[in-house]
């Protein structure tokens, strides 16, 4: 095995590892869709977390919530801003989907863009989708 072969191998390896970047250079990048606030959510103007905190930390917040509800049987969340919410994805008016009525525009558009597929909806249901 000589030096040239090793270096060629390394170059090929580095090129392959960086392939997502090459892919993004040759394809056009769409801007990330903004979650739309519609219906109730638009009028209420208050949520469980601040906007930026929410963007960054909503998965861990939901993880915390499900432990509270299932394991500690705590179902009410009094947010830092003083408002109280139901710790639920979809049950009742005071839940996530109770306020953000359009799941497609609030959850899915971003998740699809970021190619994440949270398994919440394997069990939880969007009330709007049930005929």
């Amino acid at each position, binding site marked *: 095995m000589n030096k040239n072969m090793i270096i060629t191998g390394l170059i090929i390896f580095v090129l392959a590892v960086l392939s997502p970047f090459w892919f993004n250079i040759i394809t056009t990048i769409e801007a990330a869709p903004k979650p739309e606030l519609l219906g109730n959510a638009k009028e209420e103007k208050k949520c469980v977390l601040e906007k930026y905190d929410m963007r960054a930390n909503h998965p861990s917040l939901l993880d915390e919530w499900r432990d*509270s509800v*299932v*394991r500690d*049987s705590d*179902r009410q969340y*009094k*947010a830092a801003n*003083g408002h109280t919410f139901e710790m639920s994805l979809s049950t009742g008016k005071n839940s996530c989907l109770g306020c953000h009525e359009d799941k497609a525009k609030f959850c899915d558009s971003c998740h699809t863009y970021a190619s994440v597929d949270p398994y919440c909806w394997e*069990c939880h*249901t969007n009330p709007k989708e049930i005929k």
Partner: protein
Amino acid sequence: MMEKSRRSFLRVAGIAAIGLGVSPAMNFASSDSNGAAVAVKGKNEQALIAKRWGMVIDTSKLNKEINEKMIEACHKAHNVPDFNHEVDKGKYPKTRPVNHKQEIKWIWEEHFPYAFPDKEDEFLAEKFHDLPFLVTCNHCKNAPCVQACPTKATFKREDGIVIMDFHRCIGCRFCMAACPYGSRSFNFRDPRPFIAETNPDFPTRSKGVVEKCNLCAERLSKGELPHCVEASEGAIVVGDLENPESEVRVILKEQYAIRRNEALGTEPSVYYIM
């Protein structure tokens, strides 16, 4: 020399990689502490509470019709799939035929010799023999399923309810082997095609997790009684077994009640008045 520098390089690279992995966790942990106001979690005000929930079933008030009503109320509200339900081929085109032995049930009818196999008696009065008993999870004080679960997905709440965290269950089915009452069902397949009408207020389950009666924890938290109690026309009463004044204790003081397979020491919380 060459050897040495390669090793130290690898070591530094390794430490750097660990650092990269840890930093997001550190950031998140530290971001919690500097907020001014802190969020608080709590229970609903109207929630029904008990030290240890228990159930008394008056067997003289059970009959086929009432049983069916109770079972339907429970299974409908909790999105329990019915394998006899005709699958909507448009919505679920690739559904394979069912194996009825893999069915799911939270509360169901069972005749006396099966509900109480330890009380086998060839001279058992016919009225008892043919009586359609209703069986469900016993929410045992010493629950073998809780002991067996390797992830605490099945656990005992402070109020005595034995409940499942479907998010955490790995589907090892150790709890099913442990349960001496056959109260647990496993989702051998996606249940959704077999749910006639999904109740949006309760999740369905995904394939690969175990499920069972949760004593309607979601209703108790809103101050409502379990579905079976509501549909039972007085045949089922729930209450606090630790409170001598509670309705269940008052009944137990006056009438003779038995529990399923008491010899095992599991201390079931479901009583049957004979």
